[in-house]
């Protein structure tokens, strides 16, 4: 039927309906001006209209069980040459199954793309194109796309199956150590470089799409095709707080033109989360190393032109950061804070003891008094200097601390012992003349010995996990 015939049929049908039933045929014949075929067609339609009472009049109904079962594939189902083992993930509409490739005998991650209506050829073609593009990315930190399969009009993407856990679970179990976080970021961004080189933008980079294999290496999954789920996963069930908009660049959120720089934005968010456990825009976000924070901040600029302009540029910045971070002190863990406090406190007490010992020297007098004072002074200087040296090393040259401790331990043992002995001698000699001074000298000597024997090993073990003395 031509367009013109259809339009005439529409006019005839509508016109005839307005006529009384018994006059319709007559009216049609008159209007059709001898076009028999058209009269027959209109007549048949009118008959159908009369018998169509109830047809489509109530909107479609659906059994909720049917609706919920859409897209489910069960264990053992064959999809082409793949056999489904079980579901491993669900991102909105794209359900990911663990499947076995029966031809090659290997396990694959099989992503079932949304069942598309036959009429939706445009989207189908886009998915094909994007899967093909993603298959062009060859990089060790990107999960390899093996194949695009079309089975019964349905699209499946088979890709490398990665055994491991997601970066999300890593972040949830606590902040990452800075160098580890930056190393992860470098792996992610190296993968981005390879993808952007073949003009594939991830568009939905987030910790869930970054997997850490059992051997500790990074694999970015769902390149280019992930955004099909983007809008889905962004929707959260009631009560859920976290969703993907957190990783979406502003231009992506407002549906603007999207390019490779949206991935740069996502890296900024991920980097901050690895280092602080919080979104960069969270109000009560803990602090992070200044230089890493500067990198992240530049990534998440609202204006894409203010970000790093390419993955390669960002990669260079991260690599510089990694090199720097090797020279930077680590944030101080609580146990080490106590160890540092202990060293500082002991140093202060030792230094303070010089004054009572000077008073004791004056009381004792003569060569003996001088000898006791000089002994205590020398021992205190050595002990305090060594402790401050270790304290300084732990703050600024952490890597050398073990070596510094190994060297200092013997000297500290000797100087502490001499100091304690000197104090005891001073206390005993001054005893009768100045009892208060004697008590102070001896009490500090006992205290120093106790600290050295009990407290120091404890704080050292807590801070460094070793039992050797400082």
């Amino acid at each position, binding site marked *: 039927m031509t367009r013109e015939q259809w339009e005439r049929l529409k006019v005839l049908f509508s016109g005839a309906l307005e006529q009384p039933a018994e006059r319709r045929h007559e009216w049609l014949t008159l209007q059709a001006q001898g076009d028999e075929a058209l009269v027959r067609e209109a007549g048949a339609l009118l008959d159908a209209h009369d018998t169509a009472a109830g047809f489509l009049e109530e909107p479609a*109904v659906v059994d909720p069980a049917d609706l919920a079962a859409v897209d489910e594939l069960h264990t053992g189902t064959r999809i082409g040459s793949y056999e489904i083992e079980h579901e491993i993930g669900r991102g909105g509409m794209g359900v990911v199954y663990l499947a076995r490739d029966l031809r090659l005998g290997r396990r694959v991650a099989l992503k079932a793309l949304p069942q598309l*209506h036959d009429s939706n050829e445009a989207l189908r073609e886009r998915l094909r194109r994007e899967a093909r593009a993603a298959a062009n990315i060859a990089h060790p930190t990107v999960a390899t796309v093996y194949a695009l399969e079309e089975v019964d009009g349905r699209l499946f993407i088979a890709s490398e199956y990665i055994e491991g856990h997601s970066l999300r679970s890593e972040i949830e179990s606590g902040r990452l150590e800075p160098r580890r976080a930056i190393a992860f970021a470098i792996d992610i961004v190296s993968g981005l470089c390879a993808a952007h080189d073949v003009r594939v933008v991830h568009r939905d980079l987030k910790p869930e799409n970054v997997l850490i294999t059992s051997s500790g290496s990074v694999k970015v999954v769902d390149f280019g095709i992930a955004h099909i789920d983007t809008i889905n996963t962004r929707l959260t069930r009631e009560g859920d707080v976290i969703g993907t908009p957190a990783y979406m660049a502003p231009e992506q959120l407002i549906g603007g033109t999207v390019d490779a720089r949206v991935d740069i934005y996502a890296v900024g968010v991920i980097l901050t989360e690895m280092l602080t456990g919080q979104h960069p825009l969270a109000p009560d976000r803990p602090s992070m190393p200044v230089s890493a924070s500067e990198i992240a901040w530049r990534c998440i600029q609202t204006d894409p032109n203010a970000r790093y302009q390419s993955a390669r540029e960002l990669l260079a910045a991260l690599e510089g950061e990694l090199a720097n971070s090797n020279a930077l002190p680590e944030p101080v863990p609580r146990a080490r804070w106590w160890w540092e406090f202990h060293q500082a406190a002991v140093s202060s007490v030792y230094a303070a003891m010089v004054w009572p010992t000077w008073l004791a020297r004056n009381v004792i007098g003569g060569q003996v008094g001088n000898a006791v004072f000089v002994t205590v002074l020398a021992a205190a200087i050595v002990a305090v200097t060594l402790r401050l040296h270790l304290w300084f090393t732990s703050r600024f040259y952490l890597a050398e601390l073990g070596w510094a401790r190994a060297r200092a331990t013997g000297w500290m043992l000797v100087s502490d012992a001499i100091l304690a002995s000197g104090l005891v001698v001073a206390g005993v000699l001054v005893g009768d003349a100045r009892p208060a001074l004697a008590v102070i000298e001896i009490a500090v000597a006992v205290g120093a010995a106790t600290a050295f024997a009990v407290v120091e090993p404890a704080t050292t073990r807590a801070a460094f996990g070793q039992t050797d003395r400082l």
Partner: protein
Amino acid sequence: MTPDPISSLMPLVYDELRRIAAGYIRRERPGQTLQATALVNEAFVRLASERPRPFANRQHFVAIAALSMRQILVQRARARKAAKRGGAPDRVTLDEGLVSAEPPGVDVLALDEALTRLAALDPEQARIVELRYFGGLTVEETAEVIGVSPATVKRQWAMARAWLKRAVDTAPDHGADASL
């Protein structure tokens, strides 16, 4: 790289419909059916509270929701047919059990196929059917979505229904299935 809005919003609606269904399964008695109107409205209310709101307006949303419903019903009908392949003649009766006095159910696969053919002849009529039947819209709402008068929608709807009825009843492939 800006995605076509309909294509990229479909999964969203699709998924929301599925979530609603899952909610019903948890809460309600089994065997209960949901009408397109209720489903689409519920999905709209839930999605409209999202920030940023993914839809330009309700019309935009409903058009996508209706298409999603059509796809879901067709997919399930196909799955059933595949499951019963070789067994008794397949007939997907969607209205069955809802109201016993209701005329027999609609063969969704036959309807879908006929609707695709109608769309080639008259895209507007096909759209009206999709919105009214799969989206559960009233004549007035449909008129608003398409941007024509309610009278036009009524006329087109009457003809589309007659055309589809005839197509479904006489479709050779569905001779057995469609003899309701």
